[in-house]
């Protein structure tokens, strides 16, 4: 009898402990990171590099699933609705913080539908012009845009794209006049910039560094707080007298709302380790970016960044 009782007790206590146990053991099966963009794009590249490095630490496969559509809001919605057990994650960029303003009919509120895991990288952006644009540097460019060059054509990858956000921020901060020319993606916009069909663009280093180095386009400034290693001779926008101007195409990992804190901490720890891997550092460098420092690859840091960006872009997108 006593034996049976003990066994029963043990069984009950095990049953109670099971959820906690599951968190201890996590992960026990492959994890899926959903990238709401096409395979092969910059976000996908970032995801695959990080996933490979995280696999080593987590001891489980980390699979990438691509689900594009509606600027990434569709695939993100799938993660928002997924089981909050840490086996479905979202890796995407700054765009997530604009969904609320861009798609008012969305079935989920981006600011409330996700629990943060951590930032991954902050891809710097560059203000670039066609090769034969008259101004020689950023200060001259701002003067030019206020004078004879007012209304110069500025290519973007479409409303709400990070290239568009950069333009809006520039207009807001400096009062220059730009004629925004939207494209479907940055590829065709870059084609027209190299071909001299448009005057300016502001895009991620991923897309611009090689054209800059090949002397196909003219770099004016980088949008980060400090200069970046791949383009050391290109000044920051703040250096040209525009105070506190900063925008980066930051990428981050989220989990569905309700994912337990211990699981997210475990993922964050794996992410921090992954970001120190030599392969990740090298490949990120060829994207023109660097992994974020460990303290940013945490739930708290992402939460802070995400909420402040939602506020910033909602205001800016509503103003236009």
């Amino acid at each position, binding site marked *: 009898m006593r034996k049976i009782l003990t066994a029963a007790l043990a069984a009950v206590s095990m049953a109670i402990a099971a959820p906690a146990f599951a968190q201890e053991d996590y992960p026990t099966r492959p994890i899926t990171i959903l990238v709401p963009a*096409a*395979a*092969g*794009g*910059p976000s*996908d*590249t970032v995801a*695959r*590099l990080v996933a*490979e490095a995280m696999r080593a630490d987590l001891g489980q496969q980390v699979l*990438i*699933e*691509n*689900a*594009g*559509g*509606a*600027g990434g*809001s*569709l*695939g993100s919605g799938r993660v928002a609705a997924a089981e909050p057990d840490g086996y479905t994650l979202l890796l995407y960029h700054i765009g997530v913080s604009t969904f609320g303003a861009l*798609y008012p*009919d*969305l*079935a989920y509120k981006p600011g409330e539908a996700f629990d943060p895991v951590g930032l991954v990288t902050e891809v710097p952006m560059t203000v670039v012009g066609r090769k034969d644009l008259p101004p020689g540097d950023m200060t001259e460019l701002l003067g030019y845009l206020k004078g004879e060059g007012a*209304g110069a*054509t500025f290519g973007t990858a*479409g*409303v*709400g794209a990070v290239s568009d956000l950069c333009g809006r921020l520039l207009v807001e901060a400096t009062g220059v006049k730009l*004629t*925004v*020319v*939207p*494209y*479907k*993606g940055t*590829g*065709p916009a*870059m*084609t*027209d910039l*190299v*071909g*001299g*069909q*448009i005057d300016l663009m502001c895009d991620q280093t*991923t897309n611009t*560094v*090689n*054209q800059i*180095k*090949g*002397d*196909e386009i003219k770099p004016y400034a980088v949008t980060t707080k400090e200069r970046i290693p791949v383009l050391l001779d290109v000044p920051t926008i703040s250096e040209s007298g525009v105070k506190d101007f900063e925008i980066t195409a930051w990428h981050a990992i989220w989990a569905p709302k309700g994912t337990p804190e211990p699981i997210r901490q475990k993922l964050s720890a794996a992410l921090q380790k992954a970001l120190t891997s030599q392969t990740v550092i*090298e*490949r990120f460098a*060829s*994207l*023109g970016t660097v992994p974020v420092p460990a303290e940013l690859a945490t739930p708290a840091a992402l939460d802070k960044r995400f909420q402040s960006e939602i506020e910033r872009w909602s205001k800016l997108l509503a103003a236009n």
Partner: protein
Amino acid sequence: MELLSHLALGFETAFTIQNLLWCFVGVLLGTLVGVLPGIGPTATIAMLLPITFTFSPVTALIMLAGIYYGAQYGGSTTAILINLPGESSSAVTAIDGYQMARKGRAGRALATAALGSFFAGSFATLVLAVAAPPLARVALNFGAAEYFSLLVLGLLVSISLAHGSVLKALAMIALGLLLGTIGQDVTSGTPRYTMGYQELFGGVNFVSLAVGVFGVAEIFKNLQSLSDREVGVSRVTNLWLTGKDLRRIAMPVLRGTGLGSVLGILPGGGHVLASFASYAAEKRLSKNPQEFGHGAIEGVAGPESANNAAAQTSFIPLLTLGIPAHPVMALIIGAFILQGITPGPTVIEDQPALFWGIIVSMWIGNIMLVILNLPLIGLWVKMLTIPYRVLFPAIVVFASIGCYSIDGNPFDVYAIAVFGVLGYVLIRLGCEPAPLLLGFVLGPLLEHFAVRWNHLTSHKCGKNKGLERRRERM
């Protein structure tokens, strides 16, 4: 002589056991996946991209390029056999290719496609090797206004895709243009005609539309009159081309190759027009234009060559300037970056082995494809002898899987059903789906270029600096 030493370097790179092997694996995989109904090169390469991540850069890119043109071959197979185009270019092949198949000449149609593609691919690869950098430069002078004009021309010639009433063809083009307006407006981001479906923000999925109005509608039609279909299958003769056939396809292949090579270089969407333009040209030039739409071999030879030539030359803007000409090229850029190479103007000088290795491998890959595909023709044609009650559910299932795999979105599968019904209604009304598809493909491009042209010129009315600049450069 410089070219020779470059080519020697290319051969040296491409002719290692490893690279030859993966080139073969690439074209084989591309062909096999591309043969699945509804899956064109874009979907194929997106699915198979992860396989290459662990390879060295040259090997990975050789294999990816192989998957790309392999899928192009595979895509025309389903277009010919079961009227299921996976890409806008094979929609043209389906018009006459499928009619040939129905008349028991599927083998000839497939052989024509394979030989035409091989010739075009080889020629365009040579163009790529000889003149890539200067050609890319010229193509950049093509601005919004020029593209717009080109697209208007494309729409005008598209009437020739129809072999029935001109009025109905015009109506179909208009319907296609209207379907193309669904989705977010590029300037303001406002959703148009999306009926509240978030899934329609990016527009109607091309594969859903093509599979629906071509493939599924055809199935409805066949089920309605099963006997017709049975007759079509039992007489599969003449697997091989006769001397007369070869004479008939010689000029269309040459013209198609020329048109495709030129249009493929334009990074803004020229490749879309290649096969349509070639079909229109062949129909105008043919002594028996009435045969078109009923199984004219020229209607397969020209467009298939054009399409393959354009597929090769569309690598020019990518390899020389780092600019993707279409979605597949954007995927390949992603592969470059994953391999630690940022594609751009510096690639040719920094990585000559990579650049020339890829070019030579393309040619080798085309040879492999022709060797691979000619014997396979017998096998594909046998597929048609499968009883229809078994074949058609399989087609529907595979088409649905293919369509789902592109974005992982069930909505696109439902859309197939809707467009299938639409396609069937159109067949009953005597309207043809090809002009509709062209309108749908060209419509959004036409709109983007018109809007962009407007943006680029309107803000400087009076002094129009854009135009002045272009004049100065000329």
